[in-house]
């Protein structure tokens, strides 16, 4: 029987939850949820409509759902992905199509190391709001996003993943602390961060 690799063949469809401790290659279709301690590969032509929680993820096909990867995510040129993505390492090849929020977690650690400016927003709340709950009240990263038009974008993007599994995702997705990007402006807490106010510090 040779290789112990799990393969969902081209003409196979699985609807439900897949869990496991080995690599999984999807060439067919999976709807539901995938939780692996190893690597998931979504081949070109495959369709995965599922929240995914894995160690590594390589996508050449279509994936719609929230992604948490403890090591890396790579979108190859034929990838088409819609959903939130949380991983310490993300690679997106030219040609990949993606829409959603990206959270690389330890950016904040890198930032905090560089400057002791108002790092503000520690983990706490972000952990619970890790899922895409719109840019505005998210302590998490894209504080920069929220101009009115981007808020509209966020609103369009956000409801998409009502991420049922958001809670356990957040536990894994925010390795250290969610990237509360220290903004020059100091205190973060406000719902409409600096960018929304669009204040140009002008003389």
């Amino acid at each position, binding site marked *: 029987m040779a290789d112990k690799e799990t393969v969902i063949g081209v003409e196979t469809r699985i609807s439900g939850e897949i869990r496991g401790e080995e690599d999984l290659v999807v060439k067919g279709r999976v709807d539901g949820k995938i939780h692996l301690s190893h690597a998931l590969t979504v081949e070109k032509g495959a369709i995965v409509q599922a929240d995914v929680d894995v160690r590594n993820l390589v996508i050449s096909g279509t994936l719609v759902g929230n992604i948490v990867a403890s090591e890396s995510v790579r979108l190859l040129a034929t990838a088409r992905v819609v959903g939130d993505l949380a991983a310490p390492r993300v*690679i997106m090849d030219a040609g990949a199509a993606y829409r959603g929020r990206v959270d690389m977690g330890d950016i904040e650690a890198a930032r905090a190391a560089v400057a002791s400016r108002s790092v503000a927003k520690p983990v706490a709340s972000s952990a619970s709001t890790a899922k895409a709950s719109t840019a505005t009240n998210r302590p998490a990263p894209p504080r920069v996003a929220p*101009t009115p038009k981007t808020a509209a974008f966020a609103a369009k993007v956000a409801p998409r993943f009502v991420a049922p599994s958001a809670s356990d995702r957040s536990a894994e997705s925010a390795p250290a602390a969610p990237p509360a990007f220290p903004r020059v402006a100091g205190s973060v807490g406000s719902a409409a961060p600096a960018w929304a106010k*669009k204040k140009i510090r002008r003389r």
Partner: protein
Amino acid sequence: MASEDPCFIGSKTTVRGQVSGKQDLVVEGRIEGHIRLESHLTVEESATVEADIEATMATLKGEVRGPVVATRSAVLEATARVAGKVKAPSITIVDGARFSGEIEMDVELPAGVVAGNA
């Protein structure tokens, strides 16, 4: 302006306000405000840009905070540290780049797949 030489913001220079034009722009220093270019923006590794950015192409190698809208392509190189929204028809993230924010591209999904918000 005009001509082929890119506009260059040196590493010890800070610009606050609006920067716009049709010339390529290479930033090694700091910009806060708005950038509107019909050309190629390069944010070098030493640079910090906190601005609303609109450009035809954006090559990011430094720190960028702010929405980035590129009409043709955006590339986050390995040394990039980017936060905010990035919107472009083509986006490349090189291994090593750090990014937190939203990515917006048109994604054509195959028939039978719904983008979740249904």
